[in-house]
């Protein structure tokens, strides 16, 4: 199981469809490099057991990911994370855009000018990254 | 596998134990006896049935011994006992049931009288009618059922007894053409108090329409004193259901005397009866309605034995028996002339002691002991000859100790 820690269960929320949450979990994994291109993914049953979800949901998540080109299946071989750079790049792009969109939605309500905001982001990001480095070492 | 094994042992144990038990029980551990013919025709012995008690350790076992063997009461099945309890132990009735089960259905167990000839089987039952609260009223109905033996048709009729009576017993019924003669032993009806002297009444019931004649009170020609009474008994005959020319009654004269004072209470008249040593036989002829009386010689007061009467074909026999001696006197009918006299001692019969007797057609069976064992000797009444001798023997001599066997009575099933 340890080698599959990459797929450890995220904390799902109850309101969003679980399969979409799984897909998102995979995307984050790919974007952060936790999952590498070409890596085999667990069977749907393994995934269901690891994530404590219904096997049907896992199945649906894989189907969704196949549709989106995230994973590929060739013949009877186990499915793999795609090696298509375009897709991989798009995932990163999508996640960043999504996060920024969320951020902007909340910040806009406060009405901070864009320059002040950019300045604040830079300083926060740097100090946080430094903190994480300190904590992990 | 262990489970199966244990269960199989359990079931095997049950089957074996119960099977062995029932098997051994069927083999009957009680000794088996039978009547063995010593002399004469063995067919004679087949009619005999001895009822006795076998002393088996702490138990007294009732046993029935026949020529075939013995049957213990305890060894009878529940069904046999049930059948016994519902079937009358009367040979005549058993024969009627066997011959006419349809007609006899439901009729055999209540006391009733039967008559049969070639054509008809007639049954008469006396039914009480009660007043409201179950008090006897002295009113009766004759319930008559008839079976036409030729075509199996049944008829029933009822006739109300015209007199108020206290009926004791129907002595006999006879079919005379289209009427049925009913001989009743009855007392005049009384609400309370003591009965008068018993009466014998003859009623004639028309079998066509149920009309009933007035009761004909038979006159015994006795002028009884206040302290005298009679007891009337039917004289036994070979077959009570058969057509008879005569009604034979035995009368024992009784004298009564009041009980010594002090024992009497208000309403109760206490008395004791002393049978006199005098017997009379009344012979009533159904056809003519005439009655004859046979006064028998008085019995000596010293006689300490058993007196019986038997109505044989065309004659009446008086039997007087003690342990040592048998005395038979025969009188011819209808003229009542003394016929033959037979006197036998126990020694004549090679018996140690004479015990009981039973009547058969032209036979007197005498139960006695011979060499310590129960034995039976049959006499031919007409000749006085010994025609049969039999003795009870143990089938498995080793297991049975005949000394433990006592015969209480003997019956004859022709």
């Amino acid at each position, binding site marked *: 199981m340890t080698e599959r820690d990459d797929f450890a269960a995220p904390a799902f929320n109850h309101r969003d469809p679980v399969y979409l949450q799984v897909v998102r979990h995979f995307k984050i994994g790919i974007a952060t490099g936790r999952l590498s291109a070409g890596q085999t993914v667990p069977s749907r049953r393994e995934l269901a057991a690891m994530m404590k979800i219904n096997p049907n949901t896992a199945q649906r998540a894989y189907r969704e990911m196949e549709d989106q080109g995230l994973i590929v299946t060739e013949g009877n071989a186990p499915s793999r994370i795609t090696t298509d750079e375009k897709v991989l790049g798009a995932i990163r792009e999508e996640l960043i855009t999504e996060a920024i969109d969320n951020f902007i939605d909340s910040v806009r309500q406060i009405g901070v000018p864009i320059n002040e905001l950019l300045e604040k982001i830079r300083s926060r990001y740097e100090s946080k990254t430094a903190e994480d480095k300190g904590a992990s070492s | 596998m262990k*489970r199966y094994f244990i269960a199989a042992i*359990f079931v095997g144990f*049950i089957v074996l134990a119960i099977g062995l038990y029932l098997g051994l029980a069927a083999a009957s551990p009680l000794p088996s006896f039978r009547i063995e013919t010593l002399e004469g025709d063995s067919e004679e012995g087949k009619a005999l049935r001895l009822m006795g008690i076998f002393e088996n*350790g702490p138990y007294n076992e009732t046993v029935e011994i026949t020529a075939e063997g013995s049957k213990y009461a305890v060894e009878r*099945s529940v069904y046999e006992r049930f*059948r016994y309890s519902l079937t009358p132990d009367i040979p005549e009735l058993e024969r009627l049931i066997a011959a006419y089960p349809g007609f006899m*259905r439901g009729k055999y167990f209540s006391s009733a009288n039967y008559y049969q000839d070639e054509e008809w089987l007639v049954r008469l039952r006396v039914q009480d009618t009660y007043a409201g609260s179950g008090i006897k009223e002295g009113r009766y109905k004759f319930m008559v059922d008839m079976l036409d033996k030729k075509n199996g048709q049944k008829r029933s009729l009822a006739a109300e007894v015209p007199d108020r009576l206290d009926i004791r017993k129907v002595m006999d019924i006879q079919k005379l053409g289209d009427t049925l003669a009913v001989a009743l032993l009855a007392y005049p009806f009384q609400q309370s108090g003591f009965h008068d002297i018993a009466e014998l009444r003859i009623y004639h019931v028309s079998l066509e329409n149920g009309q009933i004649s007035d009761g004909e009170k038979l006159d015994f020609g006795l002028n009884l004193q206040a302290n005298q009474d009679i007891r009337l008994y039917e004289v036994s005959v070979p077959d009570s259901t058969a057509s008879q020319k005569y009604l034979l009654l035995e009368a024992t004269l009784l004298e009564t005397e009041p009980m010594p004072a002090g024992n009497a209470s208000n309403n109760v008249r206490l008395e004791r009866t002393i049978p006199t040593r005098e017997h009379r036989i009344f012979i009533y002829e159904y056809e003519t309605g005439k009655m004859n009386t046979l006064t028998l010689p008085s019995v000596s007061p010293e006689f300490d034995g058993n007196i019986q009467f038997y109505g044989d074909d065309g004659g009446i026999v008086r039997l007087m028996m003690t342990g040592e001696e048998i005395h038979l006197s025969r009188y011819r009918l209808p003229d009542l002339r003394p016929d033959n006299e037979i006197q036998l001692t126990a020694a004549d019969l090679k018996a140690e002691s004479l015990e009981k007797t039973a009547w058969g057609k032209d036979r007197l069976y005498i139960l006695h002991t011979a060499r310590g064992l129960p034995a039976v000797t049959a006499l031919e009444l007409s000749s006085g000859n010994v025609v049969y001798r039999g003795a009870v023997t143990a089938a498995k001599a080793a297991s049975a100790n005949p000394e433990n066997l006592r015969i209480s009575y003997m019956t004859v099933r022709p």
Partner: protein
Amino acid sequence: MIRYIKLVLMELHRFWKIYAALAAITVISQTAGLWMSIRSHIKRVHWEMELTSIGTYAEFAKTYGRTSFRSIVSFNELFFMGPVMICIAVLLIYVFLIWYRDWYGKNAFVYRLLMLPASRFRLFWAKLTAIMLFVLGLVALQIVLLPLLMAMYRQMMPAELSLAESVFSYVRHHIVFQILLPPHAADFFLYYGLGFVAVTVVFAAILMERAWRLKGLIAGILYVSAATLVMTFPLSLDYVLYPHEIWGLMGGIGLVLFLASVWISRTLLAKKITV
């Protein structure tokens, strides 16, 4: 068939501890009771002999008589019949418990039993078989025990004081044993056949109660009463029927009651039973 046997085995297994206890009580109580009775009887004889200065057992027996197995047992009849009565009572109760324990036991085993694949009717047969085996097992035990006890009596009693009797004589004259251990095979099958029919009738009544609860209880009581009434009814027909007809009628009624009870039970188990 094999499943039926397995079910029977399971029923036997479920009761075996109580059953073994019943058997043990019977054996111990009867043996000990007889032993004590014989001992105290011999002691009394000795005492009596001393008192009356009788020298030998033979002389004593001449004056006071011998003492049979039956008499010895009757000195302490409770030791003898007590366990028999306990066995009867326990088995009578178990006729009900064999069903109710499945519902009201700590775990409702009845779920499992009713969900066994293939006919539930086997449950009925298995329980019926088990009850009959329990009854006949104790009967067999008593049958084996009696001669052993008699042998013990012969062994312990001075020959001069004892009075021989067979097991069959003892049983036939014993008010209870003559019914429980009828030596006549016809009676044996009659009594236990009737018992068998009675158990099926009671089983049907129990299943009525299990299917419809209170209403079923009333129906069950009515059914048992009606069955008893119908069964004994021919006995009152002795004024129109001959004994063999009455017997035959009762046999027929018994058969009909048996079939009716089986049919009712089968239907209820298949369609109406409620856990």
